[in-house]
């Protein structure tokens, strides 16, 4: 199958996808009820979309296209309210967080669809271990060339989004020591990681053709890259964020990305290079492992800096762009979370206070539901 033409879309428009946990109200474990909730939400009144994910204990919601923070946040609130109402009707809880703290992967059931059965057969147990929950943010770009330039320019900032959104310290009942353990599950997939350093859409098409000729991939969906172009939407898609514990945080992260993209596109502070990726996996690891306290290396200057400080500096650089995009409330939210800590820190704080794992899930679900 050849690569789709890149659809033109308005620059810096944005949309958010969130993968959410379906929880049993009794023991707060994951529960395979996606079909029930999807059936109930068929006639919802919003412009947003809700669809299944790989296992039956997950759903994915997607907002409509937005230009500014306030309408995006309002739509996420509406979505959250309707989803919560539907969930309560079915005796369910819904929660954010990048991983469920104590679910067992082998108990998960693959959602009955051709695509998910294909993935399950191809990847075996990895498919069930992929019961992890992420936030994807789409940013509109006018052309394929623009998409690839922005994709590679953003690679330096990937650790920001990992650390800010990190909400998956617990896996299978244990504290992993990571702030975002979710990405370790994603990294197990053979086509995960970063996109090849190609800056032209035609060259990218050649790469795609070679890959499809090997039979390894069939479509762009088979690439589990941290950032990937989405030609049918005319966007690039950032996929490294854990699903936050609140929709306000989800909206703030999306608008921080939008402001950053505007800064990169309009000021062109540097040109992306292949060498940027020399420190990419190190920086990524630091963000996953230590969150905002991680240290990242600047690929140009080789300077080491705390992620928290790097984000502070970046917020200062994008401030004007955030103002123009009406996203200052979002960047303020991000700034506050630098001092208040990310969701992983909140979860650990609760555990230190003596909360059991189910009580922890109940408390984090209470933050998500409205």
């Amino acid at each position, binding site marked *: 199958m050849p690569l789709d033409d890149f659809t033109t879309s308005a620059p810096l428009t944005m949309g958010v996808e969130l993968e959410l946990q379906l929880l049993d109200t*009794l023991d707060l474990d994951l529960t*395979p009820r996606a079909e029930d909730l999807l059936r109930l939400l068929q006639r919802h009144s919003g412009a947003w979309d809700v669809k299944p994910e790989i296992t039956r204990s997950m759903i994915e919601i997607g907002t409509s296209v937005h230009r500014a923070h306030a309408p995006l946040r309002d739509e996420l609130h509406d979505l959250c309210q309707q989803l919560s109402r539907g969930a309560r*009707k079915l*005796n369910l809880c819904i929660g954010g967080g990048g991983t469920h703290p104590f679910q067992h992967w082998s108990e998960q059931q693959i959602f009955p669809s051709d695509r998910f059965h294909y993935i399950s057969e191809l990847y075996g147990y990895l498919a069930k271990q992929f019961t992890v929950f992420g936030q994807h943010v789409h940013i509109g770009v006018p052309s394929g060339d623009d998409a690839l330039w922005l994709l590679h320019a953003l690679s330096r900032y990937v650790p920001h989004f990992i650390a800010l959104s990190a909400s998956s310290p617990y896996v299978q009942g244990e504290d992993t020591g990571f702030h975002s353990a979710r990405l370790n599950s994603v990294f197990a997939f053979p086509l995960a990681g970063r996109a090849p350093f190609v800056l032209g859409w035609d060259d990218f098409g050649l790469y795609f053709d070679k890959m499809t000729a090997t039979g390894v991939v069939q479509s762009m969906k088979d690439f589990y890259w941290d950032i990937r172009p989405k030609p049918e939407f005319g966007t690039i898609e950032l996929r490294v964020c854990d699903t936050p514990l609140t929709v306000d945080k989800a909206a703030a992260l999306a608008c921080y990305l939008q402001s950053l993209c505007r800064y990169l596109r309009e000021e062109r502070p540097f040109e992306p290079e292949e060498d940027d990726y020399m420190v990419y996996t190190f920086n990524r690891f630091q963000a996953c492992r230590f969150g905002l306290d991680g240290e990242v290396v600047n690929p140009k200057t080789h300077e080491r800096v705390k992620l928290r400080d790097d984000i502070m500096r970046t917020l200062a650089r994008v401030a004007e762009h955030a103002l123009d995009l009406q996203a200052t409330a979002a960047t303020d939210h991000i700034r506050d979370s630098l001092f208040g800590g990310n969701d992983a820190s909140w979860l650990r704080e609760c555990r230190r206070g003596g909360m059991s794992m189910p009580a922890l899930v109940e408390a984090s679900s209470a933050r998500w539901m409205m």
Partner: protein
Amino acid sequence: MASSVTPQLNILPDAPALHWFTAPLDVDPVLGLALAMLIAVVVANALHRLLRLPRLVSHMLVGALASPPALGLLQRTDLDLWKPLIDLAIAVLVFELGSRLRPRWLLDNRWLALSCMLEALFAAAAAGTALVAMGAPLAAAVLAAAVAASTSPIIVIASVHDLRPRGQVSERLMMMCAMNSVLAMLAIKVWPLLGLAGQGTLVNDTWRWASSALFVFCGSFLLGLAGGWVLDWASRLSRHPASLSVLQLSLVMLSATLASYWALSPLLTLLIAGVTARSLMGQRLTVETGLGSAGAALTVLLFVCMGLLFTIDGWLQLWPWVLVLIGARFAGKALAVALLAWPSGLGWRQALALALALQPMSSLAVLLVLADFGWSSQLPGADATLLQALLVAGTLMQLSGPLWVQFALQRVAGECPKEPSHATG
């Protein structure tokens, strides 16, 4: 059985070892029941491996085989001695059922609340109307209808232990089962009023029975609330995790005993105690009672005893009554569930599964208002023929109950995890 063996053993009267051997065959009720339980466990596991037969069915079958109409290993009157332990087994399961319920769900989903009421009412109305149409006396038909409204909470919760389902159908099943059992219990409490119809004292008696029912309802409710609160309070004082199951068991015994002592409803008391404990303690309350092997033994004992109480006496004469009762009950429950399936958020296949899973019939509502297992002696005025038909229907629907639930939850609703192939039970 014992008498047929003993003369042969007397051939060697001086052999001390054989004297020792003859003693157990005198079938002491305790040893007889212990033996029945042992056989029940072994047989249940074997049949489960070979035929996927629910273990609960095998437990009841072994009990039925040991009963007087079959091998006569045990007498039904033997069970009166065991009633406190059987009551405890029932109480533990009913408390657990309560602790699995979230009453707030009925407010979040009003259609579900209506569905819970209607399935009990439709089943009772269908069964009662059908029996009256066949010529049954009104009072007896109403009693049968009240029993027909309920689903066995014991079979439901024990099946849930066995199958470990997750989904809408199993959760609604537990909610409906609790609701219809309470409604049936209340109906049976006021049922004697019917027998007084036409008598001059009806007004006074109505007031007396209504106030009695109100006392039972409110008293049980308050006692259940107090029980749940005490468990929460005691568990905060005693933080050791191992002590929680002991506290739970003590609370269950205390609540059930007080309910009986004050002539309240142990069923309602324990359900409310479970619900209250869950809402106050949240995740501190373990879902299952945590009684481990003792809890499992109690469940086996309960189901063996249920088998012992089975009767199909008079089946050849009563089968039309029995079939009409079972059929009308099924139709009533299925109709109510189907009517409100869509607005309450249930798919058609799930609605079918729920209607099937609601079929295990319960004599629990009756048993818990009686002092022993002699139904007919304690329900004066009940038509003996219809009562026997009700008992036969109860026997059939209890014995087949775990099969209905397993088929519904596993095959139709698909809510049970696949069992590993090496499962040994």
